[in-house]
């Protein structure tokens, strides 16, 4: 019976073919490490956020007079409302942790390089959409931090030359962040996740075109590939298990780790909290914003610091595969970059005072220097490594990769 139904569908829709092509026969490198689990983890977090978000929306009221109370109503009166709300607030942070690790893996192993530029760029778009969604969602509880965070961030658009004030007023629909802002942020916060789903589909279509990268950084020969199912379905499921244990720990035992205490005070347009901090995932960019003493300059620097990742395929001129694995200098740069991000986060967290301002400016300088120096350093590094003599297996990898590239060129 089941077979007959599948036959019936197969004559009208390529179900079996699709499963075969994308799952049971989809070739995946067998040497992927657990760092490759974070893509599917991002997918499951997206599911958590959409499901919990839809159920929260059934009880939430996007009205300046009712928003704060409705969140408390969810936390206190709705059956398991506390669970759904804490899942959603913890999920937002989990999303960024997973995405940042996913990006760090891509940077470390050079997975952004040809032919995966489009994967990297769709990923960049996903990051921007995620940031926008998280920012708008953060306004919804209508606490002090929500309110003043939105006030500060929407003010940034005031740096737009000539029409700055009009842009800000248009964004807010009011002279300050107000009821109109809250309602539109809610509408968009509900819409964006579905746009993200669409972009994820594009991301995955691109992935299935170019296939996964792998720790050794080349396209593997067929004998080194294994079908995605069952090997990577079970590996991803195991990854989900580990993720959910950590996630559940935070949801049940430390749910307020990711919620600022000030946000349990209702928004008060007449009183700014003594120290406004953005959510942890925006801290490095916030520090860059503050490091530049000019408003427009700061906003531009912050914007550039986020989108500059997209240039990585052009900035990295080295042809040595495997990302940082076989490239000692790139590895140093990677570590330096992560440390720099942590320093920037710390600076962003603290009030801007005395020496910290200098530290923030130095860290900002280092941030951009790493990107701007990369083309020269990567070229030079490759020449140096080749002169020094690469291990034979790496030479072999380069040869294979060049062959691959040539084949692609011929096909195109």
């Amino acid at each position, binding site marked *: 019976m089941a077979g007959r139904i599948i036959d019936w569908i197969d004559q009208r829709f390529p179900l079996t073919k699709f499963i075969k092509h994308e*799952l*049971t026969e989809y070739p995946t490198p067998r040497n992927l490490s657990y760092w490759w689990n974070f893509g599917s983890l991002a997918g*499951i977090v997206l599911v958590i956020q959409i*499901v919990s978000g839809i159920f929260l929306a*059934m009880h939430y009221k996007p009205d300046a007079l009712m928003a704060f109370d409705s969140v408390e109503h969810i936390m206190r009166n709705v*059956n*398991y*409302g506390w669970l*759904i709300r804490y899942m959603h607030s913890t999920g937002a942070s989990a999303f960024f942790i997973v995405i940042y690790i996913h990006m760090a893996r891509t940077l470390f192993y050079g997975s952004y390089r040809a032919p995966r530029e489009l994967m990297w760029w769709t990923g960049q778009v996903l990051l921007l959409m995620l940031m926008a969604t998280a920012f708008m969602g953060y306004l919804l509880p209508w606490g002090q931090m929500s309110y003043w965070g939105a006030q500060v961030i929407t003010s940034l658009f005031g740096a737009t030359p000539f029409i700055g004030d009009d842009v800000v007023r248009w964004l807010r629909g009011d002279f300050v962040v107000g009821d109109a802002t809250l309602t539109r942020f809610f509408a968009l916060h509900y819409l964006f996740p579905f746009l993200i789903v669409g972009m994820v589909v594009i991301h995955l279509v691109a992935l299935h075109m170019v296939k996964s990268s792998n720790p050794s950084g080349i396209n593997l020969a067929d004998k080194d590939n294994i079908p995605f199912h069952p090997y990577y379905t079970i590996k991803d*499921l195991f990854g989900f298990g580990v993720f959910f244990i950590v996630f559940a720990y935070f949801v049940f035992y430390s749910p307020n780790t990711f919620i600022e205490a000030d946000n349990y005070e209702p928004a008060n347009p007449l009183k700014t909290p003594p120290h406004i901090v953005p959510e942890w995932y925006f801290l490095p960019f916030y520090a860059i914003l503050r490091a530049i003493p000019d408003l427009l300059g700061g906003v531009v620097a912050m914007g550039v610091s986020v989108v500059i990742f997209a240039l990585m395929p052009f900035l990295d001129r080295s042809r040595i595969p495997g990302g940082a694995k076989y490239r000692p200098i790139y590895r140093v740069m990677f570590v330096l970059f992560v440390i720099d991000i942590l320093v920037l986060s710390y600076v962003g967290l603290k009030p801007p005072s005395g020496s910290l301002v200098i530290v923030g400016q130095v860290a900002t300088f280092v941030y951009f220097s790493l990107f701007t120096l990369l083309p020269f350093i990567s070229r030079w590094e490759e020449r140096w490594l080749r002169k020094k003599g690469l291990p034979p297996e790496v030479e072999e990898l380069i040869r294979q990769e060049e062959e691959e590239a040539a084949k692609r060129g011929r096909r195109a």
Partner: protein
Amino acid sequence: MSEHDSDSSNPESPERREFLGKVTGVVAGTGIAAATWPFISSMNPSTDVLSKATTEADISDIAPGQVHTVEWQGKPVFILHRTDQQIDKMRQSEGGKDPTADQKRVLEPNWLVVVGICTHLGCVPNRVDDGWLCPCHGSVYDNSGRILRGPAPRNLHVPPYQFVGENRLLIGQADPQRQRCERVDPDAAGDTFCVATNPNGKEV
């Protein structure tokens, strides 16, 4: 997230069928099923809504012959303070198409408590001289809330209620001491009402 079982294309099917593999599947399935419960449950009435399940009404200032309307679970409830003549008249008949003895519809003969929603299509009947008249389709109810004429199929529903103290009525919760439940007509949901009895078990 779903584990796509496509054994046909997997040459090692028998191995996949082994016992602990099934256990894993069952454990995972149970977990997913259980995880849906908080979400389903969140759509049930929240505790603040449930707390409105009962309404207290002060009946001290309802003069004989007068009706007060109170809100109970979002619905209007008519509280009619009946005069002796009205009680006598009601006891003489069984109502209309849904015949029920008046005694079965009240706890105290001079207090009638009914949900003010026409059993036809949910309109709220208006008070007229000797009962209620539904403005939507003209159903007529008597002073026992029983349907006399018109399209409504059943008598006005009697909510569970009890008297607390001298002059207060608690609607939404029956007093187990004060009532013995005898289903008059188990099929008609609107009329499954308990026969009112006094503590000594004698019918009023």
